[in-house]
């Protein structure tokens, strides 16, 4: 609870101004904190009179020393380890530098044993393998059941997973089963040197605010981490470790059955892509997306789109980048004919390098672009394609 020391409060209203959640109002000439409060603490931080403080109820302390080890879920795809899993391992290695505990990877599937040595070579001390045909295809319930049973058995201190659609779908269920905290979509994790707690940093409020979150009294401390934040873990010479095949009884989930799969063309996983070429309203029609597709494929990249292009029906929804679509962070993001509405910027502005091509010099996309090109995309892009082809050809 946020508490007010009324003797100190001068009703300056600074707290009301800074509260992002409209949780502070004046009632009977007094500051009043309402139910919208998320305990973010911005008011406490900003009160010039130090008239606000956070009150913590004493919690039952659990014996946190019983919980040891840094775990990550190693996602697989089409029989190999997903690149994003090496990024998770990399995040674990960062944590291990400050918290000297073993790193364990967790692999699910029918034929995943052969994938374990690679994880060890790159830094895992242990790899737990649950071999089961029930885990061959992703289903929320079976994955959550198996993972929570493994966690309950070994009691790790920290559990992380990628904030992919798979991670974001089943990890919350694991946290709810264990009744522990989970922080979504972290862009950084670290260890507080004084307390040894996992400090989880995540964007919130449409990316406009950053928050540091901890989980003090519950274990494991769980987080999903956005792809493309950590660089993939590399092979460490002579690294050794244990592979543990686990026999865990997984509840046969007859509730969910996968009937079929259909690939989405040209999406090649936007969140994994190193290069994304996106088209917006300036594309003028679906047929013109061929230029974007050609440009993207020349660079080995994926095709993205703005909401305007998707809503016009020019390209399917899985390509959409932005607030109601996907959040991406490629090495290079090339925006063609995208004006840069806030909702689009929220999904791509943390890309490493942004190239924007737009006719309108005043387009907001230029505010986030590293290289802004004021020009007609229908003239510029074909010329770029031609030049790249010449380079590649000769």
């Amino acid at each position, binding site marked *: 609870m946020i508490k007010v020391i009324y003797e100190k409060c001068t009703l300056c209203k600074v707290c009301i101004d800074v509260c992002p959640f409209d949780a502070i109002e004046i009632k009977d000439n007094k500051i009043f904190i309402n139910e919208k409060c998320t305990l973010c603490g911005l008011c406490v931080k900003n009160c010039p009179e130090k008239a606000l403080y956070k009150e913590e109820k004493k919690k039952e302390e659990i014996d946190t020393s019983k919980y040891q080890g840094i775990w990550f879920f190693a996602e697989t795809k089409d029989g190999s380890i997903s690149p994003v899993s090496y990024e998770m391992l990399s995040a674990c290695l960062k944590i291990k530098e400050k918290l000297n505990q073993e790193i364990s990877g967790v692999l699910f599937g029918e034929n995943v044993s052969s994938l374990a040595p690679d994880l060890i070579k790159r830094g895992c001390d242990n790899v737990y393998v649950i071999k089961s045909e029930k885990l061959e295809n992703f289903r929320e319930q079976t994955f*959550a059941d198996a993972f929570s049973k493994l966690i309950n058995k070994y009691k790790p201190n920290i559990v992380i997973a990628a904030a992919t659609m798979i991670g974001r779908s089943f990890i919350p269920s694991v946290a709810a089963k264990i009744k522990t905290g989970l922080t979504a979509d972290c862009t950084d994790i670290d260890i507080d040197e004084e307390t040894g707690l996992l400090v989880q940093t995540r964007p919130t409020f449409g990316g406009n605010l950053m928050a540091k*979150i901890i989980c003090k*009294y519950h274990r494991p401390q769980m987080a999903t981490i956005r792809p493309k934040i950590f660089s993939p873990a590399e092979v460490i010479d002579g690294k050794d470790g244990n592979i543990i095949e686990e026999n865990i009884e997984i509840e046969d989930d007859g509730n969910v059955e996968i*009937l079929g799969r259909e690939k989405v063309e040209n999406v090649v996983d936007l969140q994994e892509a190193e290069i994304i070429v996106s088209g917006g309203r300036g594309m003028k029609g679906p047929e013109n997306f061929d230029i974007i597709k050609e440009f993207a494929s020349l660079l080995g990249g994926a095709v993205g789109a703005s909401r305007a292009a998707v809503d016009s029906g020019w390209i399917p*929804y899985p390509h959409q980048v932005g607030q109601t679509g996907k959040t991406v962070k490629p090495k290079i993001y090339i925006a063609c004919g995208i004006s840069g509405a806030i909702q689009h910027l929220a999904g791509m502005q943390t890309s490493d*390098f942004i190239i924007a091509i737009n006719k309108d010099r005043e387009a907001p996309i230029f505010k986030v672009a590293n290289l802004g090109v004021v020009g007609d995309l229908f003239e510029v892009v074909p010329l770029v394609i031609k030049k790249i082809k010449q380079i590649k050809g000769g």
Partner: protein
Amino acid sequence: MKIIVCLKQVPESLDVRIDPETKRIVREGVKSIINPYDTYAIEEGIRLKERFGGEVISISMGPPQAEEALKEAIAMGVDDGVLLTDKKFAGSDTLATSYTLSCGIKKIGNFDIIICGRETLDGSTGQVGPEVAEFLNIPYVTYVSKIENISEDVMECIRLMEDHYEKVKVKLPVLITVVKEINEPRIPSLKGLLKAKKAEIKKLTAEQIGGDEKFFGQDGSPTRVVDVWTQELKKEGKVIEGEAEDLAEEIVKQLKEMGVV
């Protein structure tokens, strides 16, 4: 068929800026709206009712003002609204929110389908849907882009994954989270607006929904925010103008420098 739609009231504008004089965060615009992702959930609930009959009830947890959001849902075509509101719910993280919602949903009872938006605009965790399903001990499917059919106690739907769609058959009762591809939310009709105006939103307190109080609000929240700050995006970009040929050359030069061409 009994359909429950979960929704959240969120601030319309998520814009924050730093006052250059005081260095403090200032937020502008205080209007509240239904979380945009939830409008797809509401629309799908209404469409299911139109296809299969039954009733649609929307539920929310929030301050008393959140009843406005539930009224908006009624204006769109939802039959009833339930607001879980109590000081004890303040400071809830996703786990406590999910627990509270699951208690409220149990109170409503006898549901076949629960529909949630894929995430909220302000928190964007996407965790509440799956956690609610877990607390209710029912199956769930995330990122649903189409409901193909519902017969007896089985739903067939299409769900979106990173680079493919999956056709999934799931037993009812089920919770689904939906993406915007699933439909286009309707604009409330005049009749709907009149109905919403007269509608009574049922308000339930912690005591009324039952459940274990130690799992509500701040007490029931394992996570704590310890710091919040604004993210400053400084891009030292350059903007070039000129002939298409030169512009194209500049782009290619840049791509070459970055080693991708």
